[in-house]
């Protein structure tokens, strides 16, 4: 399970999430999604702190954020 998951075909490539990330790991992918946009994505999942800021700024509910369960 990914810490931050992008439902790529919902993304309209607005990039608002990229500015919101305190770790600057949200980037726009090279490929195109079904709508012809470069979808946002996170490659360096390990750097994600599950703060959800990217998801807060997303107008299209593209992003699902998860957190490691503390034992």
């Amino acid at each position, binding site marked *: 399970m990914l810490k931050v998951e992008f439902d790529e075909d919902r993304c309209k490539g*607005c990039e608002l999430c990229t500015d919101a990330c305190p770790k600057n790991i949200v980037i726009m992918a090279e490929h195109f999604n079904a709508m012809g946009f470069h979808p946002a994505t996170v490659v360096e999942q390990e750097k994600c702190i599950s703060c959800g800021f990217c998801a*807060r700024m997303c107008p*299209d509910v593209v992003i*699902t954020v*998860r957190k*490691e369960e503390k034992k």
Partner: protein
Amino acid sequence: MITVFERPKALTAVKTHYCPGCTHGIIHRLVAEVIDELGVQEETIGVSPVGCAVLAYNYFDVDMQEAAHGRAPAVATGIKRVHPDKVVFTYQGDGDLASIGTAEIVHAAARSEKITTIFVNNATYGMTGGQMAPTTLVGQVSTTSPRGRDSAIQGYPIRVSEMLATIEGAVYIARVSVHNPQEVAKAKKAIKTAFELQIAGRGFTLVEILSTCPTNWGYSPKDALKWLVDNMIPIYPLGVKKTLEEGKS
């Protein structure tokens, strides 16, 4: 792994028609999150009048009524008077509320209708292609103020929240923004307060949310947020304009 952020239940999975980066999408989600958190999805009836957000009835997973331009507060009054136990909100743009619908919003507030209005101010008429709205800033170019709004001809922007805050029936009026994650959190808090006061039967509540219109402003989504901060916030200061509990922000 526990999920800390996902689509709220009160929001359908339908992909919205809004332009890329349009903050309507964020605001819809906040309203839906508040509906979920208050557990009122089955009690809520929304009203979406003409404007970009008229199609909100496809996005809010609650009973909805589509209303004529500017008339949502009147439609909502009819609904709330028939179902005083239900949660009723209107979701209106600035062209809708601050122009053709000024009488309806002023009198809904004056009657202290127990409804909540989500007032999205993006200083333009989005749906119809970027005409000047009563909230368009002086000097702001639009398709009907091509050389920039000229106060000598087209007067000045209307500060709706300050105006409505003078009305006794208004129990909570706040202006917020969604231009960064911190402001989004504040906006959600304001929306939740408004809904809570409605549910408690205290009276009319409204949250004005500064919003972007990248397409009609002619900016990228990120630059549009920047333009909002630099230009709109000075004219439309954020903050709580009216609240029952003094000192409560």
